């Protein structure tokens, strides 16, 4: 997944959302957003620990949080941002976007 993301960071693409099941284990959700003037943002509720991963121009940031509802502001930098949420448990309400 990460290699694929890294390879695609330079590609200008339309918004794409891939959600592999909403009630199955090991759910991963990936999104691409162009946040020209705002923070990139992810949030989700997870039954076990969850990872929020953001990548811009080959640089990455991640935050891991314990089970429950969590969110993460990834980048305040113009340009395309790849964002990913994954967990070994069930993830619900995955959200990707640019926040003020």
């Amino acid at each position: 997944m990460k290699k694929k993301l890294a390879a695609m960071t330079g590609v200008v693409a339309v918004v794409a959302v891939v959600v592999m099941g909403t009630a199955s284990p090991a759910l991963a959700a990936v999104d691409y957003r162009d946040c020209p003037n705002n923070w990139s943002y992810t949030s989700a509720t997870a039954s076990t620990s969850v990872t929020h991963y953001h990548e811009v121009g080959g640089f990455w940031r991640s935050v891991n949080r314990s089970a429950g509802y969590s969110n993460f502001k990834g980048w305040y930098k113009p340009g395309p941002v790849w964002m990913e949420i994954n967990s070994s448990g069930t993830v619900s309400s995955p959200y990707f976007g640019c926040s003020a």
Partner: protein
Amino acid sequence: MSRRAGPVAVLIMIAAAALVGCGGNHEPAAHTSPGAFSYSPASDRVFRCLIDKGWDVQITWDGGITAGSDTIPNAQYSSYKSDSDACWSAVDDRILAMTPAEISRAYAEEVKTRDCLIGLGYAVDEPPSAQTYADGFFGERWTAYGASSIVSRPLRDEEWERVGKTCVQPSWSFGAAEDPVEGSTP
């Protein structure tokens, strides 16, 4: 930052974390135990695990363990993720081993958190029955936060911190104990 900090560097990091609150976001509160790094005992456990493994990570007040390519080079990401997954698996495995009695207590705490959020002015759906909550605990688990209006709009940092410290999520403690909690047997 090198992939593995030396023992001295690790000690310095631990001391610095204790002094400055691990990223400057941590403020001790009445309900956090002495020596806590954040409001999440589960995250604290993982944070210690990663520090012990020599990684340069930080922890926020809400238990977010942050890392990035500014301190962990891209070439070391896979190694970091492997260690991170191992540290978190101890917590997650403990969650998956929670007993019916522990789940029942978790439900009661979620209901309290719901009342707390409503008290701050947020709309929260009605909670499920205790049995429905238990039935979905290992899958689509109901949470007061997840059932609230918070998930539909990102909160500003200040508001998120105010809400998170006032209405602490019960799940932040899930998996924090290495052994079953005393009296947790069904």
